[in-house]
Structures are given as C-alpha cells and as structure tokens.
C-alpha cells in the first residue's frame, strides 16, 4: 500500500497550533521558505516562485489567524484554507508539516513515487481541503463549503488562496458573481498579486487592472495589503474576519520572494533550484 492510499492519516505530535506573535511569524516564514526551496530542489521540479510569494500570508493564516487542529484535520468547526492555485502546494505542504499534519521529513518525498505529497494538491493529503491543479476552481469550491457552513450554522471562515494569473479564468468571475449573489459573508479570497504568471508578467499575458475595481463591481469588499509585511498581513486578516459579505484581500507580493535570483523571475515559476542555487537560497533566507 502506498502512502497515498494509507487509511491512517499521518499526524505529527503537536496539538492545536497556538497563535504566534508577529516576530515569531517572521521566523516561521523563514523556515517555511527553506522548506519550499529544499523540497522543490529535492524533487528537481515544482513551483517555488508562487509558493514563496504566498507563504507569508499562509504563515499568518496557519499560525495565527485560523482555527484548526492538526491532530483532527476533519474537525467540523475548523476554518478552511483552500489552495486554488494548486501548483503552489509546496507552500501548503510546508505549513501543514510545520503545523503537525504530517512529519516534516515527508517534505523530501514531494513529487516522488508513492509520496503523500503529490505534484499538485490532492484531497487525500491530511489537511488538504481540495484537489487542485487546474486553475479557477477554488473559489467555486469555497462557495460550496461556505453554503454548507451556513446551512449547518457553522461560524468558521473559508479562505481561498488564488493566483493573480489565475484571475484570467472565467470561472473565477462566475464564482465572484455567485458569492455576492448568495450573500456569503464567511468567505475570504486572497489574490497573491505577484504580477507574474507562467510565461511572463500578468499584464503582458492578460491585462488584469483595474483588478480591485473588477472585484468591487462584483460586489466584493476589497482590501489591499503588502503580502510580505507580516504586521500588516496579520492586521488585515484579523480585520476581515468580521466583515459582512464576501471579501477579497489583494496581497501585493514578489514572486520568488526571499531568494534574490528567483525574485520577479518568471523562470522560477515552475523550475526548482539546482544544488548550487539551493545553497545560496538557503543562506539568503537565513540571513534575511
């Protein structure tokens, strides 16, 4: 039986995650960044760029803002984190491992045969809420989860992490329309606005601006934040928990953030560091 088919979930030894301070979150982000570059390098493939841009927001969610329990991944009242940009699963695996959903050593099996950690997020991995890998589906899925929560009288929040290039997908706007139509106040979308998609800058591939106006015209609350300013990220995410109606947080980020040669470099959208580059990357992250 492969790890993927295992019926007993891999869980670590930590109990519910206690909220970290902003300083502790900054340190946690460094560890998470090191996991991202290390696991993609070990796999010799994967998507470090968009994982590094999203990781500070994800650290704030998993280690401060969200209610969740790594020992009980299917706990009914947990806040949900839905990774719509499924190629950035290295970021998700890093936070899940650090939170204790499975051992950190599993990260080195990423993308390898029989691993718990598939090349794009899969629902069978403990802590993963949705299978993804085809862009544009996460917000819709989140609406389904949000509708179910409302029916059940649940008070949890549903966070959906999307890419900016992902907003090219028509389904995103079908979902945006539907969330407002169904008056969902329990859903928070986060757009990781790193400005670069697979081939090139988003605004050369497909002009997205005025992005905030688009969301506003679909009747969403729009919040802006510097996605690498931990204090601002925490404040924003804590503030939007109590907002009425669907809210989108447009997080201005840098693709490949924290590794000089990956920053703003489309080449590292879907390419891993080689051994030499990894050494430099780890050093840069630890010295930042």
């Amino acid at each position, binding site marked *: 039986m492969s790890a993927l088919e295992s019926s007993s979930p891999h869980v670590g030894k930590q109990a519910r995650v206690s909220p970290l301070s902003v300083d502790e979150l900054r340190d946690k982000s460094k560890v998470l960044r090191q996991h991202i570059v290390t696991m993609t390098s070990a796999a010799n493939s994967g998507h470090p760029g968009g994982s590094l841009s999203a990781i500070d927001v994800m650290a704030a969610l998993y280690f401060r803002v969200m209610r969740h329990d790594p020992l009980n991944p299917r706990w009914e009242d947990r806040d949900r984190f839905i990774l719509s940009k499924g190629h950035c699963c290295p970021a998700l695996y890093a936070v899940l491992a650090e939170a204790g959903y499975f051992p950190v050593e599993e990260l080195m099996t990423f993308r390898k045969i029989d691993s718990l950690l598939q090349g794009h997020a*899969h*629902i*069978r991995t403990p802590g993963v*809420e*949705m*299978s*993804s*890998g*085809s862009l*544009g*589906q996460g917000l*819709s*899925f*989140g*609406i*389904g*989860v*949000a*509708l*179910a*929560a409302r*029916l*059940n009288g649940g008070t949890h929040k549903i966070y959906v992490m999307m890419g900016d290039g992902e907003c090219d997908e*028509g*389904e995103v706007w*079908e*979902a945006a*329309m*539907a969330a407002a*139509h*169904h008056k969902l106040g329990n859903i928070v979308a986060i757009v990781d606005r790193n400005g670069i998609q697979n081939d090139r800058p988003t605004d050369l591939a497909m002009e997205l601006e005025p992005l905030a106006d688009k969301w506003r015209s679909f009747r969403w609350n729009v919040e802006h934040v510097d996605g690498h300013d931990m204090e601002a990220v925490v404040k924003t995410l804590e503030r939007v928990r109590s907002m009425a109606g669907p809210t989108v947080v447009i997080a201005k980020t840098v693709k490949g953030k924290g590794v000089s040669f990956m920053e703003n470099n489309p080449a590292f959208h879907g390419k891993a560091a080689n051994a030499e580059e990894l050494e430099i990357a780890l050093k840069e992250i630890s010295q930042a």
Partner: protein
Amino acid sequence: MTATASTRERYGEVLVQLGEENPDIVVVGGDLNISVCTAPFGKKYPDRFFDMGAAEQNMVAVAAGLASSGKIPFVSTFAVFATGRAFDQLRVGVSQPNLNVKVVATHAGLVTGEDGISAQSIEDLSLMCALPSFSVVVPADALETEQAVRTAAQTTGPMYIRLCRPVTELILPEDYKFQLGKAAVLREGKDATIIACGIMTSAALKAAEFLAAAGVQCRVLNMATVRPVDSEAIIRAANETGAIVTAEEHLPHGGLGSTVSTVVVQNCPVPMSLVAIPDGYAQSGKPDQLLERYHLTAADIEKSVRDVVRRKGAAATRP
C-alpha cells in the same frame, strides 16, 4: 398502447421526496431549473437549493465544495452543458477527489430534436465513462429513473444519470428492481443478445418480438449502468447466445457499445454489432424522424441481429 411518462418529471418528484427524507440532500442548478424539473425542490426547500445561473463550471465546483462538507448535491442542467462545459470541474473537482456529487443531466441524446446539433448530447457517455470515479447510469424509463435517483442518494460516490427531454414508454415491469452495476434480463433467448440502455431498451424489446416471430430468439439485457459495466452478464450472454448487438442513442465510441466490446474482445470474442448514431452530427427534426434517419429504430436493431446471427453461423461452419 403502452403508457408513457417523463423521466425528468419523475426525477423532480423523487427529488422532492428525497429532500423530505434526508436533510443533507441539496440541489445546485444552472438556470434551466424548470426544464430539468428541479424547480419544485427549490420551491419546497429554498434554503437547500442553490441556483448558480448559466455558469456550469462554477455550478459543478460549488457542488464539489458542498459534497466535501458532507452534503449530497444533485446538480442538474442539460447534458450538453453538464458534461461539455464543466468537464474539467468534473474531472479535477469531482472525479479525482472522488466527491459525492450526483449529476443528473436531462435533454440528452438525439431526441432533443428540433433544437439541433448544439443541443443534442451524443458525446456525454463517452466523456463520463472516461472518468474513473463516476458511475454512469442511463435509465430505460421513468420507473428506472426513480429507482436510479434513489440509489444515487443512498450510494456514496460520483454518479452521472442521463435523462431525455420527451416522454418515453413505461417498458419495465412494476416489480422491476434497479441494481447499480447489474444488467437486467428483460427477455430470454438463445440465438443472440441485445444489450441496450435508455430509450433504446424499448426498441430492443420490439426488435426481439419481431425476431421471435421469425424464429430468432433474443436475450434482451437492459444495461442501465454503463459504468461500471456488468461484465459477468456480458460474458454469460456471449457464451450462452454466441452473438451480441448493442443499442444506444449515442455515438459509437466511448459509450455502451465500446464498453461492451472491450469486455467481449478480452473474454469471449463473438460476432458483435453496434447500433449507435453514425459517426458525425445529426440535424434538427422531430425525435422519431431523427431516430429513423440515424438508424436507431427497432428495425435497425433487427437487421443487426440478423447480421450477427449469420456471422455466428458462418463461424460455426468454417472448417
């Protein structure tokens, strides 16, 4: 004259009953809720009815989210839209994570008629049979529709149920029992077997009757579950009758005929013939005119049976 009933109306009625019986049943729509007969559910249970407008990708992925939260979503729209417009959501969003989503598509097949080729879903079985987690069910009449929909609500896993627009004949006996994954023998015979689903089961029974009068005895299998197909019943039919004709209101590839062929060729090669829509697109017209023009009548099945019986005889006498 055989009594008739609408499969989609029966679906709508059963859905309302299921809503009463199970509070986890929810319905997701994509406009067209009146045509697909889910509107009565929405009227009775407005808090469990979610219209997503004419946006099928979102509709299917919303259903996936509901299923992941323990709800039992029934998603309904026309077959062309349910499968064609939302295939990626069915594949990545429902099949790969094996979520408990029920897709009940109406207006399938050629008999959608006058609306023409864009509305005639003649590829949906091929698409849905390509998805490993899905069960694919094509009920033969309203009675079987009712039982299949109830089974869907009671069975965990993705399911596709294919219904049509026109009223159809009630051909199954009152004591009929639909079993997911099992073929039903509707008639016994030793010379050949006709394996059919959906509206073609009715044509198969008529063909068997004509043939019996001419001395050719056919077994008729109603293969409502196209996936996972009842291989045992197919192998038994091949071994016991020595010739097989399949009949479906769909293109010849990827649906019932090719599924049965896969079983036959690997286990018990016997002469086979596929009655299906000839490879290509049809046109607008009345359902009966289209069935005749595109060779989906009892007479077409009869002709195919005579052909396989002749080939079976030729094989038997070959030195």
